[in-house]
């Protein structure tokens, strides 16, 4: 057979090397147009993938926004020290000076009772009632801002306890404890989302795998004939891998649309809600990075799913029973 005259005498390695970029492009486009020939079933499969990808992606984004927000609030959160009612201005200023020395605090602001009362009168609408008071019932208040290194919840708790123990301090209060709890909860939720993402990714693999399996069964004859005329496994695998990748890309595209639409739908209510709390909080949109990540992630999952399915089902379609 050394006398084999021509094209079929392609040496082993050449096929892959010679399989140029334009051929891959051609194969990719062929697979895409094959998918678009049955747009409805393609769309349905892609929609399943889209939902599976959109769910964790959307939740992840919302949680990210919330975490950033609560993180910001926490950074500005301080400890309020209410001094004993009988404390003198000298004592209060002494404590302020003492705390300012301490490098664990970045800022210590003193509010005198007089000033506090004025502020309260201005903002509370109780001006009339307050006017009836014989004496000022408010204590000196020190607003202490811990330095950034102290913002760990545990350190914060220790700090509050230490300040509370000071003889001149009546009450030490960490303003945004609830926020700390909320932040911790979003961290738990983030973990849940990660598990969800993992499960749904497996779902994507299974859906693509099953779709490819059906595709392989539907093209049994073609595969067998290709093998009979000398197609390598690589050649036969290629279109299915492209189909899997395309499903992933389409799924990623739909997921991006779903997430964008949902966030857009939520934007109004969230703005109103934030407004009630005098907050500038806004949900972030789906940027270019999210778009790219969803497409790339979808393509990768689709490719992997197809690869697993092809590996499992192609060997069963040997036209022969050799070895």
């Amino acid at each position: 057979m050394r006398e084999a005259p021509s094209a079929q005498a392609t040496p082993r390695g050449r096929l892959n090397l010679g399989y140029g970029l334009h051929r891959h492009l051609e194969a990719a486009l062929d697979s895409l147009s094959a998918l678009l020939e049955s747009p409805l079933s393609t769309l349905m499969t892609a929609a399943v993938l889209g939902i599976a990808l959109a769910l964790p992606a959307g939740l992840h984004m919302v949680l990210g926004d919330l975490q950033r927000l609560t993180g910001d609030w926490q950074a500005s959160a301080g400890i309020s020290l209410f001094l004993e009612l009988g404390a003198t201005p000298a004592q209060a200023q002494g404590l302020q000076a003492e705390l300012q020395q301490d490098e664990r605090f970045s800022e210590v602001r003193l509010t005198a009772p007089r000033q506090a009362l004025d502020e309260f009168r201005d903002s509370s609408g109780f001006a009339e009632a307050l006017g009836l008071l014989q004496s000022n019932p408010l204590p000196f208040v020190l607003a202490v801002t811990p330095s950034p290194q102290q913002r760990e919840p545990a350190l914060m708790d220790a700090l509050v306890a230490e300040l509370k123990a000071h003889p001149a301090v009546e009450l030490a209060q960490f303003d945004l404890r609830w926020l700390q709890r909320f932040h911790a909860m979003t961290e738990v939720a983030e973990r849940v989302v990660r598990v969800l993402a993992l499960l749904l990714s497996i779902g994507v693999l299974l859906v693509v795998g099953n779709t490819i399996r059906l595709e392989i069964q539907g093209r049994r004859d073609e595969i067998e004939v290709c093998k009979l005329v000398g197609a390598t496994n690589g050649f036969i695998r290629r279109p299915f891998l492209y189909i899997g990748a395309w499903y992933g890309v389409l799924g990623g595209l739909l997921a991006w649309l779903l997430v964008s639409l949902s966030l857009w739908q939520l934007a109004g209510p969230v703005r109103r809600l934030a407004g009630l709390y005098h907050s500038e909080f806004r949900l972030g949109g789906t940027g270019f990075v999210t778009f790219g990540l969803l497409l790339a992630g979808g393509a990768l999952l689709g490719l992997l799913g197809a690869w697993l399915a092809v590996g499992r089902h192609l060997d069963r379609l040997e036209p022969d029973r050799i070895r």
Partner: protein
Amino acid sequence: MIRFEHVTKGYPDGFEALQDLSFEIGQGEMVFVTGHSGAGKTTLLRLIGLIETCTRGEVQVGGHNLARIERNQLPYFRRKVGMVFQDHRLLGDRTVFDNVALPLVVVGAGHKEVGRRVRAALDKVDLLKKEKLFPVALSAGEQQRVGIARAIVTRPPVLLADEPTGNLDPDLSVEIMRLFREFNQVGATTVVASHDWGLISRMGRRILVLRGGRLMGDGIAGGDVG
């Protein structure tokens, strides 16, 4: 070119379709294999095309012991053997042109080369004008000729045909057999299985006669065929 040495083929159910078969086919030779239905003709061709492997003995093609060809080498072996099937195995969702082009496409031949070779093959089987049709639009004889064009489009050194005239009337059958003789004349070692004794005995070529999986005769018709 093709050499069988004490070849026995047992199918997984234990049935031995070929028993202790020995013969040799020279390069460029044209040989018919005949026998009743179930005699083992298809099995013999499947052994040469490496669709099956023998259970005892040794099959050699082109100097290679087929038992030694690794699975990943199989496609490269198949490219050197053109096969024509009784049911022609054309792909119904592809045009005549695309069906014939398949063996070239799987080796990654360029567009120009594919076009040139496919048209040359279709010209030989006289179907150039039907390249854009789908197989269903063709007659049985035309479908078989498309199958033949696909088998010869890469000009393989070995050409195998299993009952290529099985479904055809006598005139078309003669025409198809003449086609194989032409390809053989340009150098392809050709093995054609057919139970149509009347047809092949007039071709003036060597005939292997199988009965119950054994070689019962080997010669040119009119000579010592048993």
